[in-house]
């Protein structure tokens, strides 16, 4: 391919027709409480890992729902599975299981 000295800027538009929603479907089927998430960010605020490093569960949720699952594996491995997020979730979501199901889905659909 030719090099013209510039690259074609990648489109930041989220195209729901193009994205892979298999991971989200798998998580929702296996941990239905995840349906109730209101993206309040309580999980992120209390996150042990997030207090020390760049890790954001709310952002993971958003990327998963948008189908932007690239790089998810690297991100998900930052979770220490301490479960504090479960204690603060106002919707009673089993967030620890959500993390485990995401890991499982990554293996399944790799």
């Amino acid at each position, binding site marked *: 391919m*030719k090099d013209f000295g*510039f*690259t074609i800027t990648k*489109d930041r538009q989220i195209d729901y027709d193009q994205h892979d929603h298999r991971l989200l479907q798998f998580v929702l089927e296996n941990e239905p409480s995840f349906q109730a998430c209101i993206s309040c960010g309580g999980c992120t605020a209390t996150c042990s890992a997030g207090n020390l490093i760049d890790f954001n569960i709310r952002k993971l949720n958003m990327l998963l729902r948008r189908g932007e699952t690239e790089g998810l594996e690297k991100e998900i491995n930052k979770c220490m599975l301490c479960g504090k997020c479960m204690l603060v979730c106002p919707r009673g979501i089993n967030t620890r299981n959500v993390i485990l199901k995401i890991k499982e889905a990554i293996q399944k659909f790799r």
Partner: protein
Amino acid sequence: MKLEGKKRIWDDYQKEIADNNYYFQRSCIRQNFFPGSEHAFLKILKNELGKDICDDEHHTTCTGIGYHADVVLFETIMTVVARHFALMTEKGYENMIISCVTSFGIYTEILETWKHFPDVLKKVRQHLKKATGREFEIPKNIAHASDIIFKFREEIAARAKYRLINRNTGEPLKIVEHIGCHYSKMFPVHGVGGAEFPYVLQGMVESWGGQIIDYPERRHCCGFGFRQYLVKANRGYSVANSKKKFESMKPYKPDMIVCNCPGCTMFMDKWQYTISEMEGKTYDENGFGIPVLTYEEMAGLVLGYNPWELGLQMHEVQSEPLLDKMGVAYHPDEKYKDAAGNYLGEPAFPTNLKVCV
């Protein structure tokens, strides 16, 4: 549904276009990259429609590219435009036709400024007098060249040798129309159909038998954007815009793209080559790309002008598949000959974009 009310509302979206006696303002990009277009425009107006049009060799660029690239000041460009008005006044014309959409935007912006700030107009008159000794009148009517073709579209349809119909299937050609942003997005009142429903190209296509494709990114900018293109490192933004449009229109299988802006024609055409070289992608089924025509070239084809005289071989995406669909007669061996019949040699061919040889 009460159609009467709708018609009354639609009347508000129309503009007044002069009937005759025009002073023609050429376009830098159009006359360099698509030189047959303005030639065809003048031929149509003079020979087909019998209009009086002045093609003045004394006018210069409007300096719009420099203005939008922040190297030409507003005061400077206003004085350059004032000189063009002075040339028109000296020749005895009152109706101006502008070939370029960028220039059209510049002229409308300047006229609007003078309307609201008469002191600025006074100052520009002084600048022009001091610099050139000229004086000028503000044009009575200002129109883009596509407005003129739009106005006389039915007259052209009556003289049509070919129609925008696929002669193999009998179906209308599927056409993407692309309106330049500076045509009506800045001052909607100066565009046919305003900024919301620009109808100038759609009207031509419908009158000549074609069918418009209403695809999701129809009103998206082509990505020219001056600074995006002029700085090489930023060109990725420019290509990305055109690419977004190509991706969006591809599923509708367009037979051609028609533009009224020289910049849009250039980028919709040349970025297809660039994308094909950088990513190996083409946007038609057979790898030839989607031909991009100016409205004058489209009108010329409808009127049966020689495609090589219209300069279709100057485009990056070659138009033989379109000519075959329309049933336009052409001589492949004359493609690379000049007006005197001298063979000019073949250009370098693209790697991925197919070209009829």
